């Protein structure tokens, strides 16, 4: 805690090159990924650090004035800042944040790649299946032949399979043909 308080005086992101003194034992280099980071996320609206880390001299003065009442700025100062677009609300916003909520929430065109990839792999699978049919599978059993199937159907009708609403219900036993 004391170390981070001391580091905040150095400047928020300049810490990457400074070192962290721990309890007199030695120094530990603080890596970039271990520092508080900036990120645009809808569920975490106020990140740990502001976006623009190294402020130019003008931006620094603007930040100082921003802390006070803007009414105290003289007209010339306001105009000068406005001309440089620094006093514009959007410019102040952009120092603290990288993207607005509208920008960070907008969708990408990624779905097109996803659909294209899906079709491609389904097509590849189809080719593999066709090759399998030709070169891998053996012949189908004899029970698939037409004569066998006819005998099968006749036997099912003889047994009165599903005579109420199903198979045999559609057969006309008097005229020996399928019902119209």
């Amino acid at each position: 805690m004391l170390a981070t308080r001391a580091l905040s005086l150095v400047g928020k992101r300049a810490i990457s090159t400074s070192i962290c003194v721990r309890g007199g034992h030695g120094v530990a280099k603080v890596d970039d990924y271990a520092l508080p980071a900036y990120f645009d996320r809808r569920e975490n609206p106020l990140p740990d650090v502001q976006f623009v880390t190294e402020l130019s001299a003008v931006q620094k003065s603007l930040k100082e004035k921003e802390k006070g009442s803007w009414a105290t700025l003289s007209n010339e100062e306001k105009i000068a800042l406005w001309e440089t677009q620094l006093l514009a609300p959007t410019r102040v916003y952009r120092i603290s944040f990288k993207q607005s909520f509208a920008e960070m929430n907008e969708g990408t065109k990624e779905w097109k790649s996803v659909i294209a990839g899906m079709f491609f792999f389904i097509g590849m699978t189809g080719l593999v299946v066709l090759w399998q049919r030709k070169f891998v599978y053996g012949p189908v059993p004899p029970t698939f032949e037409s004569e066998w199937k006819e005998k099968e159907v006749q036997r099912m009708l003889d047994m009165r399979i599903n005579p109420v609403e199903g198979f045999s219900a559609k057969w006309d036993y008097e005229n020996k043909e399928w019902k119209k």
Partner: protein
Amino acid sequence: MSLAKPAMRGLLGKRLRFHLPIAFALSLVAAAAFKYGVTEPRKQAYADFYKQYDTTKEFNNMRDAGVFESVRPTGE
């Protein structure tokens, strides 16, 4: 310009009060539709079939077709 404070509490309750009656109503409708569209016609179809069913005639027809193992067709 300040925005109105968004609702912070009671979100689940509000969602349930909206969705549960609709869910129950739709379930009842689905059940009623299945009952009167499927099961009642099916029960009626079975009742009608067996009203006209002559057991002996059907048995003899099946026997002559040769599907039984316990009785041979008549005349063999």
